[in-house]
């Protein structure tokens, strides 16, 4: 009798827990607002970003509607791909979100300064079609001084009869418009910067598809496996990135605009485990992603979060993320020159010195503190340190401090 009472008690608590179906939660607190402020600061006066986010969700008996807003202010300096040199003769026309390009010092054009603002708005709708089937769809628009993006997505999730397994599918379409903020155009790929011909703005369309399955393994563990494919066509070059042609002593003879293939096929396999440690309230989130694309980039990403409950109301969550990627097949630190000091141009016309396409390792260490101020107000504070090391890029290291504070209120 005692065990029956205990079983019923657990069942009732389960229904009333915060993870209960939207209908159960909606009756009590149909509205939820989650706001956040984030500061991203790279070392050595590189990129600084201040990000403000807000998600407003209204839950009902049959689903939920979420409106999301993001505001970013970005400034600082970013590597152009050019080799650091004090006797460069190159001239530059513009930089992201800036009316002009400013050299670092003494004719060194390896860094470009920029100052920009980005606004993003999104709408996501989730609808229960039946007790076991959920449809979700939404869209987002993003705008900054040199980039416009619009995207729509749709997803379907269906649980099995025992509700232990959920199959998911998703499809998204994104269209991007890319141009230089000062001139509204893009440079001719692989053209000499001193003899450049402007092209019209760049367009790129992307279709992403995902198939996934999640499964309750036992009372304390959930597992997820996703396979996703993304195909993009159109302008993939970066209108601000350049690549230097230089001799063996790194003396720059000319600079050329970034040039990348006009299509990309990405695939990734993603797995995740969520587990509550035995005889405790501490939990573990462990994920791994294998990524590969037809630019010859392959990457491995491992992510581990451990939530340590300090009591009923607050917790600490250390976080480790490790990432490694190979370089794109057309990535080069510089274009070599022949005996006559003429640049050796790539046979296929593609070359980029963008540090993000170089082979790299990246690691993140972080710590989050969460506090339930009241049953309906959650506070989260986190600090993360990102450290990136590049194989051959002109700037071989990048590190950043990320600070974020978030408040979620249900009413």
């Amino acid at each position: 009798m005692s065990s029956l009472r205990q079983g019923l008690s657990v069942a009732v608590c389960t229904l009333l827990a915060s993870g209960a179906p939207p209908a159960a939660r909606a009756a009590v607190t149909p509205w939820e607002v989650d706001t956040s402020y984030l500061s991203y600061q790279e070392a050595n006066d590189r990129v600084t970003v201040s990000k403000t986010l807000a998600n407003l969700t209204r839950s009902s008996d049959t689903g939920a509607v979420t409106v999301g807003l993001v505001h970013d202010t970005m400034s600082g300096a970013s590597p152009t791909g050019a080799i650091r040199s004090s006797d460069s003769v190159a001239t530059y026309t513009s930089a992201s979100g800036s009316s002009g390009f400013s050299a670092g010092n003494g004719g060194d054009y390896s860094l470009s300064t920029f100052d920009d603002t980005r606004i993003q708005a999104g709408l996501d709708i989730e609808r229960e079609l039946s007790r076991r089937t959920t449809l979700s769809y939404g869209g987002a628009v993003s705008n900054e001084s040199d980039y416009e993006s619009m995207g729509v997505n749709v997803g379907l999730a269906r649980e099995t009869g025992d509700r232990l397994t959920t199959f998911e599918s998703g499809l998204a379409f994104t269209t991007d418009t890319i141009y230089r903020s000062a001139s509204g155009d893009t440079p001719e790929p692989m053209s000499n910067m001193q003899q450049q011909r402007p092209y019209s703005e760049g367009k790129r369309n992307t279709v992403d598809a995902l198939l996934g399955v999640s499964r309750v393994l036992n009372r304390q563990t959930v597992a997820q496996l996703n396979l996703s494919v993304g195909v993009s066509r159109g302008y993939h070059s970066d209108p601000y990135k350049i690549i230097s042609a230089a001799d063996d002593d790194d003396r720059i003879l000319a600079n050329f605009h970034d040039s990348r293939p006009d299509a990309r096929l990405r695939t990734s396999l993603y797995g995740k485990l969520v587990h509550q440690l035995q005889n405790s309230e501490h939990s573990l989130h462990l994920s791994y992603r294998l990524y590969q694309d037809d630019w010859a980039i392959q990457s491995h990403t491992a992510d581990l979060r451990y939530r340590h409950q300090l009591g009923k109301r607050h917790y600490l969550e250390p976080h480790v993320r490790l990432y490694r990627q190979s370089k794109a097949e057309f990535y080069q630190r510089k274009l070599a020159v022949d005996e006559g000091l003429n640049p050796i141009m790539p046979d296929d016309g593609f070359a980029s010195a963008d540090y993000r396409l170089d082979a790299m390792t990246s690691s993140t260490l972080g710590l989050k503190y969460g506090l339930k101020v009241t049953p309906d107000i959650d506070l989260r504070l986190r600090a993360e340190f990102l450290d990136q090391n590049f194989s051959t890029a002109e700037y071989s290291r990048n590190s950043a401090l990320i600070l974020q504070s978030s408040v979620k209120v249900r009413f």
Partner: protein
Amino acid sequence: MSNFTGWIAHTSSASYSRFGRTVVLIMATSLTACSTAGDILSFSDVRPWERGTLARDDMQLVNDALEQSVDDHIYFSKEASTGGSSVQGGGCGCN
């Protein structure tokens, strides 16, 4: 702020690896003490009334959507790989 991160970038190697070792040690100890790979990967039939733990916020596959969207954006901007956990995204001319 930039001075602070600059200081971290130049002096953190030793403390960074120390901190990393500490975090890994904490996680490994917790795993050893409280759970095993067998616990995690054992399959069992879970009845509806046995799902109290699984209903907790921290046991959801995405337990902080705002944080995940921020992280996706940061790593999309700084690495060549993207995607995997969802198909929702937003382009940017990030540097």
